[in-house]
C-alpha cells in the first residue's frame, strides 16, 4: 500500500505543477491579455472593464490562489467567446474526443496484438515480411494524410461511411460509431504499427528463454505455451508503449478532429486559441494534461499487476 500512497502523492504534485505551469504560461506571455483580446484600438475604459472581468488587475499570487481553488472545484471560469462556463463547454465536447480515443485504442489492441503474434510466429516467412512492410508504411504515413485518404476511399468513393457529419451518441449510437470508424482508424494506424513491432520483438525474445523449454518439456501444446506462458510476459513492454503513446493519440485526435470536422475537444481548443479565449484554453490544457497523467497512472498499475516481480518490490 505504501507504493500506492507514494504514487498518489506524486500524481497530486504533478497535477499541481501542471496547474502552476498553465497559469504561468498565460501570465508570463508579454502583453496585457485584455489588450491582446480587445486590440490596439480599445479605450482605457474597455480595457479596465475586461481586466476586472478577467481578474488580471489583481496581484499574481492572489490570482493564482483563486484560480487554483476554483480549478480544484473544476471551475475554470467563463469562456470569453461563448459566455458559458468553461466546464460546461468542455463537457459538451468531451464525449466525441473520448469516444474517438477509446475507439482507436480498442482498434490498436484488437488489431495490433493479433498481428504481432502472427508476425512472431511466422518469423522470416512471407506473413512476417508482409506485416513488417505494413508497419513501416503505417509509421511513415502521417495520420492526417491517412485520414484524408480514408475519406476519399471509404467516404467519397465507396460511400460506406458518412463524412463530415457527426451523429451524437444520444441520437443514434450506431450512426455515432459509424461516424467515428474512419477517424479512429486513421489515428490507430501508427499505433498499431508500433504495437506490432514491439510485440513481435518481445515475443521472440521471450520464446528464447529457458522457461519456454520447461513449458514444452511439461507436454503443453504449443498454443498453451504461447498464450498462457509467453504472451503475458511479452505484453509488458507493449502495455507500457501503448500507455506512453496515449498522449500522442490525444494530440493526434486534435488534428484528426479537424480533418473529419468532428465537434470534439480539438476543434474547441483551436477555436479557443483563435479567439484568445484564455479561460477556455486554460481549462482545456489542464484537462488534457490531467488525462495524460491519469493514463500513465493506470498504465503503471496494470504494469504492476502483470509483472509480479515489480508488484512485490
Amino acid at each position, binding site marked *: 500500500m505504501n507504493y500506492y500512497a507514494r504514487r498518489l502523492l506524486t500524481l497530486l504534485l504533478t497535477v499541481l505543477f501542471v496547474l502552476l505551469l498553465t497559469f504561468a504560461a498565460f501570465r508570463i506571455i508579454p502583453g496585457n491579455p485584455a489588450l491582446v483580446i480587445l486590440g490596439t484600438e480599445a479605450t482605457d475604459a474597455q480595457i479596465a472593464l475586461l481586466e476586472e472581468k478577467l481578474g488580471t488587475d489583481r496581484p499574481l499570487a492572489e490570482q493564482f490562489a483563486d484560480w487554483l481553488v476554483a480549478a480544484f472545484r473544476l471551475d475554470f471560469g467563463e469562456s470569453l467567446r461563448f459566455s458559458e462556463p468553461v466546464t460546461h463547454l468542455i463537457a459538451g465536447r468531451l464525449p466525441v474526443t473520448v469516444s474517438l480515443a477509446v475507439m482507436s485504442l480498442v482498434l490498436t489492441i484488437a488489431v495490433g496484438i493479433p498481428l504481432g503474434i502472427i508476425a512472431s510466429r511466422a518469423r522470416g516467412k512471407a506473413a512476417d515480411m508482409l506485416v513488417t512492410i505494413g508497419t513501416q508504411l503505417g509509421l511513415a504515413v502521417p495520420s492526417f494524410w491517412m485520414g484524408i485518404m480514408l475519406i476519399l476511399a471509404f467516404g467519397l468513393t465507396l460511400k460506406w461511411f458518412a463524412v463530415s457529419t457527426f451523429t451524437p451518441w444520444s441520437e443514434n449510437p450506431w450512426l455515432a460509431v459509424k461516424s467515428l470508424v474512419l477517424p479512429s482508424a486513421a489515428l490507430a494506424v501508427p499505433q498499431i504499427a508500433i504495437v506490432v513491432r514491439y510485440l513481435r520483438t518481445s515475443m521472440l525474445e521471450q520464446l528464447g528463454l529457458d522457461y519456454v523449454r520447461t513449458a514444452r518439456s511439461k507436454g503443453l501444446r504449443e498454443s498453451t505455451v504461447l498464450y498462457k*506462458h509467453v504472451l503475458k510476459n511479452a505484453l509488458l513492454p507493449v502495455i507500457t508503449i501503448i500507455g506512453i503513446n496515449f498522449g500522442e493519440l490525444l494530440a493526434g485526435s486534435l488534428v484528426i478532429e479537424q480533418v473529419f470536422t468532428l465537434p470534439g475537444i480539438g476543434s474547441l481548443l483551436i477555436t479557443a486559441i483563435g479567439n484568445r479565449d484564455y479561460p477556455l484554453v486554460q481549462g482545456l490544457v489542464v484537462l488534457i494534461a490531467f488525462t495524460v497523467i491519469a493514463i500513465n497512472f493506470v498504465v503503471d498499475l496494470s504494469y504492476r499487476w502483470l509483472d509480479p516481480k515489480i508488484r512485490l518490490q
Partner: protein
Amino acid sequence: MREAAAIATEASLLDIRNLQIRLRRTRGAGLSVLDGVSLTVERGETIGIVGESGCGKSVLSLSILGLLPSAMRIGGGEIWYEGRHPLHTMTDRDIRAFRGKEIAMIFQDPMSSLNHGLTIGYQITETLRLHLGYSRKEARERAVWLLRKVGLPRPESLLREYPHQLSGGMRQRVMIAIAVSCNPGLLIADEPTTALDVTIQAQILDLMRQIREEDGTSILLISHDFGVIADMCDRVLVMYAGQIVESGTVDDLFERPLHPYTAGLLRSIPTPAKKNSPLYSIEGHVPALHERGAGCRFASRCAHATERCRTEQPELVAYRGGHAARCFLAEAEGGNRHAAV
C-alpha cells in the same frame, strides 16, 4: 559393430541406439552434433552422463523428448521408451503425451527455468490437470502434497507465490515437484545443482535420492561434475565431442579409467586433500563441430596421442564387466589391466 554400452533387453525403460543428431544445414557430412550414441536406462537405475560443456550431453537429453533446438534434427538411430514407444519417430502431438508424464526434466537454472509471471501453484497444477485430468481442487491438493514431499515449508501459501520470491534451492525443489508431479518413469536432470551453492547442492541431490527410493523413478543425471555423478549413479557414460568415450560402473571408472579424458576429469575433481593446490583442469577446449579431425577427437588435448590417433578414429570397445572405452591406448593395455585384477 561392438556396441558395448548396450546390454539391450527389450524391457529397458529407455533404450537409445546409435543416435545421430545433425545440424539441419550441413555442408558436407561431417557436422553431426552427436555421433552414434547408445545407452540404456533400466527401471530404478541412475545413469550419469559426464563431460565438459559443449560435449553434447544437453543435446542428448533434449533429443529424448523431441525438444532439440530448431537447428538440429535426429539424423539416425532410435530412441525407445519401455521397448515399445519409438520416441524418435513420433510427431510433436504424440510425444507430448510423454513429456512431463512418462519422462520429466529438470534444468540447470531454477530461476530462468520457471516462468516468473505465473504462480508456483499454476506451474505445478498445470501438468496435473493436463496429464492426469485432475480438477482444479484435486490438482491443488496434490500440489500441496508435492510441495511437502520435496521438503518445502508452508505449501499452501507457497502456491500463491511467484518464483522470484523463493531462494535458488527452493526454486529447484519446486522444479523437482513439477517434474515428479505425474510420477514419471524417467527423470532427466540436466545439471540440476550447477547453479546452486555447495550445501544446497547436497540437499537437492538428497532429495533426488529420496524421490528415487520412494517412487522407483529412474534418473538420467547429466553433469560436468564427476563428484556429483559418482555420488548418485550406478553407471556412468563419459561424453566427449558428441561421442561416448567411456562407459562403465562408477567404481570401474574411478579405479581404472581407460580413457585419458576420463582420467583428466577425475583429476579435476576438487577434494579436501588437494585443497591448497591449484585445481587441475584439462588443457585446451572441446573441439567445435568444424574442428573435429579424422582421428581421435581428444587427440589435440591428449598427452598420449600418437600418429595413429590423429588419423584413425578409435571405436568404443567393450572390456570386462561392461567397461568400455574409445581409445587405442586402452585397446593395447585395457585387456591386460583387466586381466591383472
